[in-house]
């Protein structure tokens, strides 16, 4: 299947759910959808287009919204599904019912951006430590790391 055929299939399948679709390079298709359509679109991608492999989910702090980019791949190339969620209310629905392998990346997204994934099968932190202070999301652009002052037991005050 070429990129054009894939885009045609996607347009037929999802119709006006697709906000934008482009093909900037060979075997790379980028598709934008509304956050409300995430669950039906991924159900369709796995059921009708037989996608099983989600390579990763990238988050991006884009000013007043978070850009979430799902990278899927199959033998024909790479499909990237983009959605934007407002920073004020960062809620997203889990795609694990359709693609169970996405769980690690959804957990990573929660740890790194503070995006809340509703109905996630396992919401424990994945990459941040157990004693990580709440409300610290390192990959947000306004987050800065400050090294705590070193205290040497018995040292000079």
């Amino acid at each position, binding site marked *: 299947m070429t990129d054009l055929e894939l885009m045609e299939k996607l347009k037929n399948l999802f119709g006006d759910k697709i906000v934008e679709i482009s093909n*900037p*390079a060979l*075997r*790379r298709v980028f598709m934008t959808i509304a956050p409300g359509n995430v669950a039906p679109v991924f159900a369709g991608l796995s059921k009708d287009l037989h996608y*099983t*492999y*989600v*390579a*990763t989910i*990238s*988050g*991006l702090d884009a000013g007043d919204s978070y850009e979430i*980019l799902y*990278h899927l*791949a*199959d*033998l*024909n*190339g*790479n499909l*990237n599904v983009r959605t934007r969620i407002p920073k004020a209310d960062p809620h997203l629905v889990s795609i694990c019912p359709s*693609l*169970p*392998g*996405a*769980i*690690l*990346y959804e957990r990573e997204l929660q740890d*790194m951006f503070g995006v809340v994934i509703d109905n996630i099968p396992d919401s424990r*932190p*994945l*990459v*941040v*430590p157990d004693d990580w202070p709440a409300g610290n999301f*390192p*990959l947000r652009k306004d987050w800065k*790391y400050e090294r705590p002052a070193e205290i040497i037991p018995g040292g000079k005050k």
Partner: protein
Amino acid sequence: MKFTIPIGPQHPALKEPISLRMTVEGEVIKDADIRLGYNHRGLEKLAEEKTWIQNIYLTERICGICSHSHSTCYVQGVEKLMEIAPPKRGNYIRYLVSELERVHSHLLWLGVAGHEAGFDSFFMYTWRDREVVMDLLEMISGNRVHYAMNTLGGVRRDLDELQIKKILDGLAVLRTRTEFYFKIGASEPTFVGRLAGVGYLSREKALALCAVGPTARASSISADVRKDDPHAVYDEVPFDVCTADTCDVLGRTVVRIKELLESYKICEFLLKNLPTGDIAVKAPRRAKPNEVVSRYEAPRGENMHYIKSNGSDKPERLKVRAPTLANYPATVEMLKSGFIADIPLIFAAIDPCICCAERTVELVNGRTGEEKIVRFSELRKLADERFKNRPVKRNAVWPF
């Protein structure tokens, strides 16, 4: 009765910190849980503060074994953003180093697998032969671990005739050795018996859990980024994707040995058809606002970098997905219904030291919690009975 055994994050046998929590019933693993983050270095955040050039050396330090994979994945993405293409000779040398790196990584893995299976002569053989390719890499790049070959627009070092001859000689030696390793399975039944049936991962599960690399290919999924997304030189080079259908550690060993033979073929093709010309072009300092998804087949599976530029000399976002992370859900699946003694094999580098023997043996019934002190002869009888009905037992045949 179920017990939970923690392995890690700090354990004498773990090379890197990871925490495995095994729920066992008797010595059969019922459930496994993995906790990451003990080695999280915040590299994606750091990359946003470094320039395009500095990030080559940062991405190279993501991994110590497949260092060239990450820097190549990054560099081939950034070159697309900057709209430059490396000269053909530079490209050939870059992917020659990639394949040599795959050779050293697979030989290393074979040694570790042999060691964990209790076949230490195999470990010593493969690691001795690995020195051949390590010396070649040192001769090409000047380094054994971080080759620092990549730069934006090409590679940093050229090859001369003598070096090409030396690499071809080294590859000839490695090929004979690898063919010998391929035969070892047939002549060494204990090795095959130890690996067969361990860490079973069915094709359906491997697909559903998004396994990558040799792990997926051993479950008869013919996915290889070099074939599916033939970037750079891979559309010119003849090679086959290696798969196995046994879905166990034996299959993963077979896949890796076959891939070694394919890598020698690719290296020889690249060297014999090495074009003349420059090895690098000059790269601009800034990249226009754009985004790129870069894929690369590392020794362990697919590497994916998502790079977004904002017009400055620094990336807006660099997302790195390393293959090992993708294989964790599959590893949990493999561990289930295996034995405690199979954890090191399945997890390759992990060697849990659980049985610290005492003089008297107290048996705790795993189901009822009943405790009983037994004599050695009784224990022997129980053990014989126990191993008559092993839950995972499959035929041990080397698949030629």
